[in-house]
């Protein structure tokens, strides 16, 4: 039995039965990392020594007869934009290469309390800006299904590490699709929860009103287990919703009879790969077969989602990233003269081109004389997009689309054309603008590459998403297929 291929709930059972130990798990995953990381390049930093220490302590506890919690002893890793006390947190940016936070993000605290064991920090597009992880200042993470292709982004490292069995699960962040699009590209389950369900405290901000931490897991059950740990109100985050968190595993019900699923036709427009379209249609047929009531519908403002997103996200980013100036921490350019020179040179040398592009876009959109025409108008359109969803959810329990219009693309294929790159998030961005939850689950293959099924639900109704995703998963085997870690 290869331990690294198992899910958290399977490993937890083994731990509870003392058929494996936490140390054995850390060692197994450590070996797996040694074996595949050279090809995958998912990690920015490994924390194996700490992990072993933590595992040994846990084993002492288990030896005393204590039962492990659901995620206790489970090896995982975090996208490198979540602050970890004493462990470098870089956002895959030169400007934060030397930054070691003196505090933990709330999700890090919660996972630590649950006893999960962190193996390291995972690569991303610099400051989570990108859809291929090619914008990392450090490395290009590769898609385990085809090493010549991107893993998607921006949570590319997180997704690839789960897909390649280097960890059991990972946390990513999703501002416009950064969990779901790579999850689709690498064949794992990726949930972006409702905005405000998971605390953003300690998540290094890209666009505050859109950013949301979520889960990357090997199946839907693990997704529910991780949500049980990380979701819930946090007084340190004023935008965190003051709602009671349910037991998400209660939604793992293999039955969707009568569930009303809307298929927004705008998500199947120009640019969708015919193979992807075919796979999604088959998935729809499967859900109907399982008892769902499926009907086409319309979200009329969908075409404005991308321009709206590319005004709001860069505007917030231009302000959020202003603090990286070389004064207090991070990169400071040498020999830069006066204070303004230091700001300019540190930022010019510290940020990569995509981050600079978005800072410029955002600064422009907020400038006097342009604010009303761009930023303010974008806020108004955002409201219209929300209303589209509100109306659709009067009729449907959830909405379904492809997660991405194409499967994983090759390195360099889109990096020269930012607009083409941006369009790979066309199906995922609206959920961020509306603040609603959405999940991507493996639903088949197009030319041998994974395709993701995208389900969008009502705010704080992760339960319905999990139920439909779980039922689909229980009646298909796509999530069990493992990548070859070769070249196609």
């Amino acid at each position, binding site marked *: 039995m290869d331990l690294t291929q198992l899910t958290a709930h399977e490993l937890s059972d083994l731990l509870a039965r003392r058929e494996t130990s936490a140390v054995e798990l850390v060692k197994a995953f450590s070996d797996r990392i040694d074996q595949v990381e050279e090809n995958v390049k998912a990690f920015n930093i490994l924390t194996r020594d700490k992990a072993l220490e933590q595992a040994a302590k846990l084993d002492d506890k288990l030896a005393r007869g204590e039962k492990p919690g659901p995620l206790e002893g489970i090896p995982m890793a975090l996208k490198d934009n979540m602050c970890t006390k004493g462990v470098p947190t870089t956002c895959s940016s030169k400007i934060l290469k030397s930054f070691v936070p003196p505090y933990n993000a709330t999700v890090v605290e919660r996972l630590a309390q649950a006893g999960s064991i962190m193996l390291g920090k995972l690569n991303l597009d610099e400051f989570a800006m990108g859809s291929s992880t090619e914008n990392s200042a450090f490395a290009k993470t590769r898609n385990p299904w085809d090493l010549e292709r991107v893993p998607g982004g921006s949570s590319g490292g997180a997704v690839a590490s789960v897909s390649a069995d280097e960890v059991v699960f990972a946390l990513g962040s999703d501002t416009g699709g950064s969990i779901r699009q790579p999850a689709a590209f690498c064949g794992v389950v990726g949930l972006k929860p409702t905005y405000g369900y998971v605390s953003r405290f300690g998540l290094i901000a890209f666009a*505050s009103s859109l950013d949301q931490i979520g889960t990357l897991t090997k199946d839907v059950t693990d997704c529910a287990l991780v949500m049980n740990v990380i979701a819930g109100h946090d007084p340190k985050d004023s935008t965190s919703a003051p709602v009671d968190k349910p037991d998400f595993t209660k939604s793992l019900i293999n039955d969707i009879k009568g569930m009303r699923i809307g298929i927004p036709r705008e998500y199947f427009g120009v640019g969708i790969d015919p193979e992807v379209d075919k796979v999604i249609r088959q998935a729809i047929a499967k859900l109907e077969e399982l008892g769902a009531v499926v009907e086409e519908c319309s979200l009329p403002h969908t075409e404005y989602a991308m321009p709206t997103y590319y005004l709001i996200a860069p505007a917030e980013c231009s302000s959020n990233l*202003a*603090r990286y100036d070389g004064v207090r921490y991070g990169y400071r350019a040498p020999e830069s003269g006066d204070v303004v020179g230091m700001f300019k040179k540190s930022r010019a040398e510290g940020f990569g081109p995509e981050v600079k592009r978005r800072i410029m876009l955002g600064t422009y959109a907020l400038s006097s004389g342009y604010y009303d025409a761009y930023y303010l108008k974008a806020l108004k359109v955002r409201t219209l997009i929300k209303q589209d969803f509100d109306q659709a959810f009067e009729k449907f329990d959830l909405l379904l689309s492809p997660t991405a219009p194409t499967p994983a693309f090759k390195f360099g294929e889109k990096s020269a054309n930012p607009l083409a790159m941006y369009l790979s998030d066309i199906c995922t961005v609206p959920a961020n603008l509306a603040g609603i939850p959405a999940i991507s689950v493996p639903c088949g293959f197009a030319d041998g590459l994974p395709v993701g099924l995208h389900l969008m639900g009502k705010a704080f109704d992760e339960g319905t998403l999990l139920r439909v995703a779980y039922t689909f998963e229980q009646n298909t085997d796509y999530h069990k297929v493992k990548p070859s870690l070769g070249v196609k």
Partner: protein
Amino acid sequence: MLGDFEVVAGVEVHAELATKTKIFCGCTTEFGGEQNTHVCPVCLGLPGVLPVLNRQVVEYAIKTGLALNSEIAEFSKFDRKNYYYPDLPKNYQTSQYDLPICLGGYVEIEVDGVKKRIGITRVHMEEDAGKLVHSGATISTSDVSFVDYNRTGVPLLEIVSEPDLRSVDETVAYLEKLVQILDYIEVSDCRMEQGSVRFDVNVSLRPKGSDKFGIRTETKNLNSFSSVRRCMEYEIERQAEILSEGGQVIQETRTWDEGKGITLSLRSKEEAHDYRYFPEPDLVPMVIERKWVERVRESMPELPDSRRQRLLGLGLSAYDAGVITSSRDLAEFFDQALAKFKDAKTLANWVMGDFLGLLKAKGLLVQSSPVKPEGLAELLTLVENGTISGKIAKTVIGEMFETGKGAAEIVKEKGLVQISDTSALAGIIDEVVNSNPQSVADFKAGKERAIGFLVGQVMKETKGQANPGLVNKLLKEKLETM
């Protein structure tokens, strides 16, 4: 100098709020402290941190709005004001832009007996920045600059006036009144020497009779009334000179050089920052419940104007009422003493005279006075009921300041009880009358004033302990029988 011009001025006041903790984190707001010790990841703007609004800040803003007759917004939000400066850890200041917490309002001032209402445009909440220490004179001429972030995130209120001020005197009167109100409602320490209240003054001139505004300059960061006065006087003269020579004032931000007593150009309108305000996405908008506003309204202390009116009603002079209500601490002291000693005029004389005199001589503040309101009331009661004379009381209050002891205790210890015993005084009076025949003769000859000398002699013999009224009465009786 001013010639045919009229002054038009408006002021932005920044007041640090007297909350225990900062506006968005739990750090102390205490002034001073080792550099960068009153800080945490949140106020240092480290990556990934989020602000959590201190509710007390909102309550103080509501209180201020009510004191300034403003409308308290039902819906208000924070915005980011974006600009780069090393004392601003996030390179944006969390402030309020288009939906401030308080709108409108006024402050009533009185200059040369004329009352006038100065309009308030708005009051909003924001965070203070840190402090820069340069090795040279300015940031651009220094080899090294240091930043102290202790002050970063201390809550500020910005109070913006309408351009209703028409003279330097009106401006200073407005500011004094505003600071007095902030002090009364206890939302700010108003320690100007610590920079807890700062003023930005907008000044322009226009031909008398014109209703159009002239081009204005804004001078930033003045931190005393006298600086405001000197700065405005300078700026008025500067602008008047330009205008009377047919020139044009440049719209710009200026800075005040306290040493040289001049204003200097900081940046022109063209160089003005584009702050790129937008709604703060890390904080949720505030819905300010009316119940809350009413609760604050009910807890409001008496404000300076109504307090002054009340004191005038008790028979105090306008001057005395003005001095006593000038600070909340003194007014509180007066009221607490008045609760135990009902003669307001006598109390006012003592507070204004001996009490403030001794405080000043000792360099003490009202709240640190060794003589408490009850102590002063006790002393004055001893005078009122004839236990000691007013003259002795002056010695006793000095002793009270020195030793911190109570009036009755000192009187008893030192045997200062007034001699009101007729028989005890009769002998002394006989003696004084016998040894001063000339004065007796003068009195008999109709010189009423001669009795004053005789009273003085009796007081001298009794070391001031005789009841002067009684001595007067007994002397007269004695002389009339002679």
